């Protein structure tokens, strides 16, 4: 599934459109500790987390994630929002729990 298709499905609200609509999502990935995500997130994954701070954006760029999905109603703080805009990172948000949200994407991808 491409980022543009995920956006069109409206499963999650778009917080920042990173302009990478053609990026193919490889799989969902769920993790909240940045030190783990940094070394475990794989290229092209959709990263489900509750961590909405600036370092989440940086780690997403480092790991080459396709997008970030903030779950449980977590929000991007102001600095992180600016960073997402600067670094062209697509960020969605949802009130769903991490597992439910990741599972929903997984099913959509089958």
């Amino acid at each position: 599934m491409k980022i543009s298709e995920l956006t069109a499905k409206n499963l999650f609200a778009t917080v920042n459109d990173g302009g990478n609509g053609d990026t193919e999502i490889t799989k969902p990935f769920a993790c909240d500790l940045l030190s783990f995500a940094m070394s475990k997130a794989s290229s092209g994954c959709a990263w489900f987390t509750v961590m909405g701070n600036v370092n989440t954006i940086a780690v997403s760029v480092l790991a080459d994630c396709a997008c970030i999905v903030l779950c449980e109603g977590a929000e991007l703080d102001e600095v992180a929002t600016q960073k997402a805009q600067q670094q062209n990172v697509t960020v969605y948000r949802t009130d769903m729990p991490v597992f439910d949200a990741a599972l929903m994407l997984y099913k959509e991808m089958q």
Partner: protein
Amino acid sequence: MKLSYDLHIHSCLSPCGDNDMLPSNIVGMAALKGLDVIAVTDHCSCLNCPAVAKLAEAYGITALFGMELTTEEEVHILCLFDRLEKAMDFGSYVRTQYLDIQNVPEIFGEQLIVDEDDNIIGKEDTLLINATQIGFEFVHGLTEEYGGIMIPAHVEKKANSLLANLGAVPEESRFTCFEMKHIGYRDEICEKHPYFRNCKMITNSDSHYLEYINEPVNFIEADEKSAQAVLKALKNINN
């Protein structure tokens, strides 16, 4: 005496700190604002503290020394010391507990070590915003061992805080001072987590840019204007 303070300021050593956050600019700005006491607390490193020490002495500002430690659980904790040597020794220990992940300056920002004259004397290669291998439960004992104090940082924040990452104050906690970014939430968090009622609360700028360093609007009551007296005051929950 009442001393104005800002004890949580990041320098250009923190990857997220602006490169204008040179020790000279920070101490100069603090002097201009009329702050009595400051602390430069970079993520997991004290390597810009020597420059701060020299500049603070020159400007007549009292400085505490230390860092904002990131625990294994990614909880941020201010670790403050009254003497440079203690902070540097603590920093040397923390260095042995780094995760082996390198900084990528284009993504995270540079990590510059500078002297009091703004000369770049080194760059930290290990990524400093990362977790260390030090668990939250060990920080109190460690800071005591090195002669300092631990202060859980911005406890009400939704990321990298004691309450966000651990969910509650662990039962075995022994810290006596905590930091809030927004002090308006104090009653709320004290109600939810009564442990905080018996602690001293401080608030700092956590500034990564020069313009955000606090004005002299927050005060601490200390016996005299010295690092030792301020550390003692931070440890005293009764004033």
